[in-house]
C-alpha cells in the first residue's frame, strides 16, 4: 500500500520532468535535424561562421577567466564573512541577471564607450571597447558573472569552515588555508559555476550587439543571417554553437560526475 502511494508522487515528478525535458529537446532537435550533416559541413567551410564560432567560444573563455580571478575571492569572502552591506553586495552581484540584456549593453556603452568615463580614461592607451573583442568580453563578463560568483559562494559555504581553522593552527595563513584546504574541496563546484558562466556568455546577444556588433559573435551572426538571408542561412551557425556547447557540457560533467560519491564533507 505504502509503496504504491509513494510511486504516484514519483510518477508525477517524472511526468513534470519529462515535459520540461521535451520542451528543451524539441526545438534543439528540430533545428539540428533541419540543418542536416552535409549542410553543417558546408557551414564549417564558411570563413565567417568559423571565425565567429572561434571568437564566441574564446571570448566567453576569456570572460570566464577574468571572472574566475576576480570573482572567486569575492565568492569566498561572501561565504565566510559577515559585514555591513553584505546583502546589498550580494544583490548587486545578482543585478546583471535581471538587467534586460540590451539595457545592459547601453549601460556598458555609457561607461566604456568612447565618450564614457572608462572609455576616455583608456583611449590614450589605445584601448577601445566598442567594435572590438574587448567589448565582447566585457559584455559577456557583465551578464554572466553572477553565475560564477553565486555558484562558487554556495560551494565555499558548503566546505566546513573548521577545516580552515585546523589548517591555520597548523601554520597556514588564511590564504594558504584557502589554497591548500578549501579550494581543493570546492573546485568542482567552482568549475561547474565557470562552465555555466561560459555557456551563458556564448549565448549572449543583447549586450554584445549594442557594445560590439563587430566582430560578430555567433548569436549576432545568426541574427544577421536570419534577417538578411532567411531561416536556412541562420540554421548552421546556430546549430554549430549548440553542438559545441553541448559537447563541452557533456565532457565537463563526465569529468566532474564520477567523483560525486566521495565528497561527504565533515565525515573525516
Amino acid at each position: 500500500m505504502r509503496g504504491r502511494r509513494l510511486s504516484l508522487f514519483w510518477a508525477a515528478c517524472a511526468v513534470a520532468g519529462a515535459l520540461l525535458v521535451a520542451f528543451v529537446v524539441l526545438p534543439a532537435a528540430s533545428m539540428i535535424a533541419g540543418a542536416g550533416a552535409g549542410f553543417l559541413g558546408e557551414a564549417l567551410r564558411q570563413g565567417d561562421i568559423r571565425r565567429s564560432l572561434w571568437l564566441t567560444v574564446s571570448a566567453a573563455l576569456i570572460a570566464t577567466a577574468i571572472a574566475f580571478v576576480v570573482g572567486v575571492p569575492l565568492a569566498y569572502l561572501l561565504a565566510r564573512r559577515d559585514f555591513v552591506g553584505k546583502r546589498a553586495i550580494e544583490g548587486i552581484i545578482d543585478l546583471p541577471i535581471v538587467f534586460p540584456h540590451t539595457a545592459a549593453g547601453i549601460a556598458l556603452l555609457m561607461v566604456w564607450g568612447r565618450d564614457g568615463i572608462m572609455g576616455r580614461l583608456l583611449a590614450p592607451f589605445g584601448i577601445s571597447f566598442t567594435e572590438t573583442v574587448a567589448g565582447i568580453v566585457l559584455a559577456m563578463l557583465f551578464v554572466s558573472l553572477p553565475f560564477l560568483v553565486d555558484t562558487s559562494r554556495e560551494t565555499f559555504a558548503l566546505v566546513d569552515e573548521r577545516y580552515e581553522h585546523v589548517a591555520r593552527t597548523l601554520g597556514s595563513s588564511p590564504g594558504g588555508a584557502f589554497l591548500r584546504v578549501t579550494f581543493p574541496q570546492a573546485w568542482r563546484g567552482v568549475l561547474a559555476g565557470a562552465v555555466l558562466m561560459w555557456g551563458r556568455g556564448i549565448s549572449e546577444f543583447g549586450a554584445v550587439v549594442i557594445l560590439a556588433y563587430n566582430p560578430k559573435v555567433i548569436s549576432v551572426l545568426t541574427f544577421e543571417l536570419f534577417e538578411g538571408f532567411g531561416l536556412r542561412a541562420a540554421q548552421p551557425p546556430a546549430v554549430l554553437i549548440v553542438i559545441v556547447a553541448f559537447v563541452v557540457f557533456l565532457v565537463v560533467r563526465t569529468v566532474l560526475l564520477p567523483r560525486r560519491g566521495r565528497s561527504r564533507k565533515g565525515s573525516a
Partner: protein
Amino acid sequence: MIGLRGVEVAAGAFSVGPLDLDVPAGEYAVLLGPSGAGKTLVLEALAGVRRVRAGRLFVDGADVTRLPAERRRVGLVFQDGLLFPHLSVAANVAYGFHRGNGERTGWLRRPSAERLAQLAEEVGITHLLKRRPQTLSGGERQRVALARALAARPRALLLDEPLSAVDVEAREELQEVLRSVCRREGLTVLHVTHDRAEAFALADTCALLVDGTLRQTGRPQDVLRWPADEAVARFLGARNVVRAVRDESDARLAHLATGVALRVADPLPAAAVDLVMRPEDVEVWPVGAAPPGAANRLRATVVRLVLQGGHVLVGAESPAPMEALVTARRAEDLGLRVGAAVELTVAPACVHSIPTT
C-alpha cells in the same frame, strides 16, 4: 603554559566569561562542563580562530591575544577529527611540516619521511599512512588528527571532546595514547569534555565550566570530593543534595527539613547550607544491622533499583530522597528489592557542605 585573564568570548547572543585560568607548563588540564557551556568557544579563542571580546590569552608566557592563529603554535584536535578529505593520511599529518625545520625537502617540498614515520609510530598509525581519511574508523581518525597536530610542533595542545565520537572499546586505548604522547612531548594540554570519567582518567587539573563561568579548579579527586557549589556537585554526579540548617549549639550538626540530623566532620561555615553526599559514600544495611558507631543513620525504603553493570544504584526515600551506589554483589547479599526497608549510613567525613547562595 596556557593562561586566560579575564577572557570573554561571544558568539551571537551567547557569551562565556570572564574567565581566569592558568595551566602550568607540561600539565594536562581538562575543562569540564555540560554541553553548551561554551567550552568550544574558549578553545577557538585560544587557537586564534575566534576573537575575544575582552581579556588576554597567554601561551608559554607570551601574550598571544593579538597574534594571528598561524603564529600561535597551538594545536587543535576536534571531536570529529576533521581530517582533510582530499589528502591521504600521510599528507594530512605532514600538512604542518615546515621547510625551515628540514621537514620539507627539495624544490617539490616533499615531507620528510623520517619525521612522518616517527610521528606515525608514536601515535600508532604507521599502517594507515597510505589510506584516505574516509576509510578510517573513529579511533583511527582521532589518532591521525593527533599526529597532524603534533607534526606542527605546537607549544600547547587543545582538544575539543576528542573521544566523544570514538566507540567505547577504542576510547580507553586512545586515552592511553593521549596521556603517553602528551607526557612524552611535555605538552601543555587543555582538553575539553563533558565526560567526567574521561576527565578523571586524564587530568592533572580539572576546571569546571558551568553556565559560562569557571566555578572551580583543582585536582580531579579534590573537585569530586569538595564541589564548590550545587551546580558543580550535580554535574559531577553528586545526586544527594539536601538543604540543611546548622544547629545552634553544635556547628558540626545539621538539621534537615525532614527532622533528620546529620553529623559532619568539619564545622559548618554558614547557618544554611547544602549538604552533598556521593552515592558511593552511602552504605546500605538491613534494618538494625548498621554498625552501632555510625554517626549518621537513616531509615529508608527502597523505591528504585537501577542496575549499572557491576553496580546497583539504590534509590530510597528516607523520607528525603537518597541514592546509594552498591556493588551488585552486595545488593544480592542484601536481597534488595523495591519496597524493602533498609538503613543508610554516611560517614561524617563524606558529608560535604556548600554554603547556599
